[in-house]
């Protein structure tokens, strides 16, 4: 027998959020870990069924906010009290209450940039090519259908057994291979 062409994984299509949740649960119970669900909107509970680790996005945002606040305050202190001290109405050079608004704004700015760029970075976006797009019906994942893909790199993956498992979950049509 010739070596089969390597594939990314096997994919099943479902109609409802209940089905994708049940299918993910069943696949997880069968020991699969390297898999992903693709849905047209965020289905609550999928992250738990997939056993995803806690996201690092909040930590990235916290660090961004602290950097923004500290950097913003330092910039104002450095400019107004150190580099070019300017006497305005006899007020102290290090007039901290007047520095609070810009400190706050820069905290929000850097934290927001961290939230969005951090989300993109952790999601590895932009990623124009991905094997799942090779599945002809996958355009429905952004519209009205729910897909579960078990990846070939999973240690439990077996071309026959995995297909049988997915097929037993009553997907729409047949389970399809996801080619590279």
């Amino acid at each position, binding site marked *: 027998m010739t070596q089969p062409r390597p594939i990314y994984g096997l994919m099943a299509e479902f109609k409802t*959020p209940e089905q994708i949740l049940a299918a993910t649960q069943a696949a997880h119970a069968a020991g699969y870990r390297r898999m992903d669900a693709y849905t047209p909107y965020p289905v609550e509970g999928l992250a738990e069924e997939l056993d*995803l680790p806690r996201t690092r996005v909040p930590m990235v945002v916290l660090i961004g906010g602290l950097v923004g606040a500290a950097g913003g305050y330092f910039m104002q202190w450095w400019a107004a009290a150190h580099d070019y001290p300017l006497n*305005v109405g006899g007020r102290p050079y290090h007039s901290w209450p007047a520095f609070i608004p810009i400190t706050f704004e820069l905290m929000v700015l850097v934290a927001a940039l961290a939230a969005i760029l*951090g989300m993109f970075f952790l*999601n590895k976006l932009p990623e124009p090519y991905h094997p799942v797009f090779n599945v002809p019906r996958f355009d429905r994942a952004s519209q*009205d259908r729910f897909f579960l893909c078990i990846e070939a790199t999973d240690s439990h993956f077996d071309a026959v057994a995995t297909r049988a498992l997915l097929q037993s979950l009553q997907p729409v049509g047949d389970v399809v291979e996801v080619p590279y």
Partner: protein
Amino acid sequence: MATEAPLPTTEARPDHLPSDEPSYLAPGHSFRTVTDKISSIVLARPTPAAWLICFAINLALLMLLAYAVVYLLVRGVGIWGINIPVAWGFAITNFVWWIGIGHAGTLISAILLLLHQKWRTSINRLAEAMTIFAVMCAGLYPLLHLGRPWFFYWLAPYPDTMGLWPQFRSALVWDVFAVGTYFTVSLLFWYMGMIPDLATLRDRARSRFAQIGYGILAMGWRGSARHWYRFETAYLLLGGLATPLVVSVHSVVSADFAIAVLPGWHETVFPPYFVAGAIFSGFAMVLALCIPLRFFYGLQDFITDNHLDAMAKVLLATGFLTSYGYFIEQFMAWYGTNPYERSVYTNRAFGDYAGIYWTLIFCNAVAIQILWFKRMRRSPLVLLFVSYLVLLGMWLERFMIITSSLHRDFLPSSWGVFRPTFWDYATFAGTIGLFFVLLLVFLRLLPMISISEMRALLPGTHAHEEGR
């Protein structure tokens, strides 16, 4: 389509929903119909004639703006009616008015997100777009008002060869940071929320050009559960960041006035009074946009009468907060016994600008009282009329605060009256054109309602938005 499974539709309302909760989506919709209806506005349906007419009118106004700005750059700010004592005139009035309008967009997208208000879903995309375009219009005015707009970059803190820094103790510099942050965060929030919808458009587009264009903007979004998990976390955090931001922005704008010692400006009530007024005028603009849009595009299923009702209630509540500001200003002037303060407030009500004062009191405090009646809150025509009155009233309020305070300060020898010129009006009309041109282009090219969030709004969908 008959062959499609009729899964989950709004007819099958789950039992745990209280029956008296208003519905924010007409019955009979499914994932497919929601997707079809919103994306077809951009991808399939022909450009409506009303769109073309509006675009032509507003493009003409935009050309007027270009003309007015070029003339301003050639001749200087003297073409406007501003002079001493009223040096701020229309430019700053328009700045405060436009930026206030933007605030409703952030309130809808961020604060109502945190409060789990379902009715935000069908209007948040449009309201966020309104925010971005309004802030663009607002940002033009302080720049043009600088006198030498080509040196605008002196406002940025960068190590220049002159060895100078911006004056960080000045409220005007705070403004640069507040408005800059506000614009950046609003734009990113808007774009990020749109990525799943851009993927939908990419997958539904027929023409190669549209597929590639939306494909680039969608960044390869594939709806992975891992991606959604981080996306939702980031989106919620952005909502949490934008909420204090929106309050801070108009507070900083009010500090432009409140920090000064001028009677009529030097008020501790200004930050909350300005923020309430901003949301008030912004909701009026959201209504003024939503009502014609749902009519012309037939979106009554998504922007329901219940939405109008909810927005009208916000309008009424923020109108009262703003009216409280008018009342407490007058009260403190009387109670504080400062003769300059008293004179300014007497002058507002009975002086050169009395007509403006009483018109704005009518628009902002009296006209909204009709919204106590449920039938009026659900009547698009009444709401449209009230929202126009509020937009006018809020513009007059900003004008009143700036002009009536400046035109008579401490020294009678330096009193004067502000008279706007043709160029003042032309620039204002021009930014209205700019706003609507941007908005119309947005309506034509991008989904005006968040498709992915509308899908989640269907009952039985296991999403955060569902069934609350």
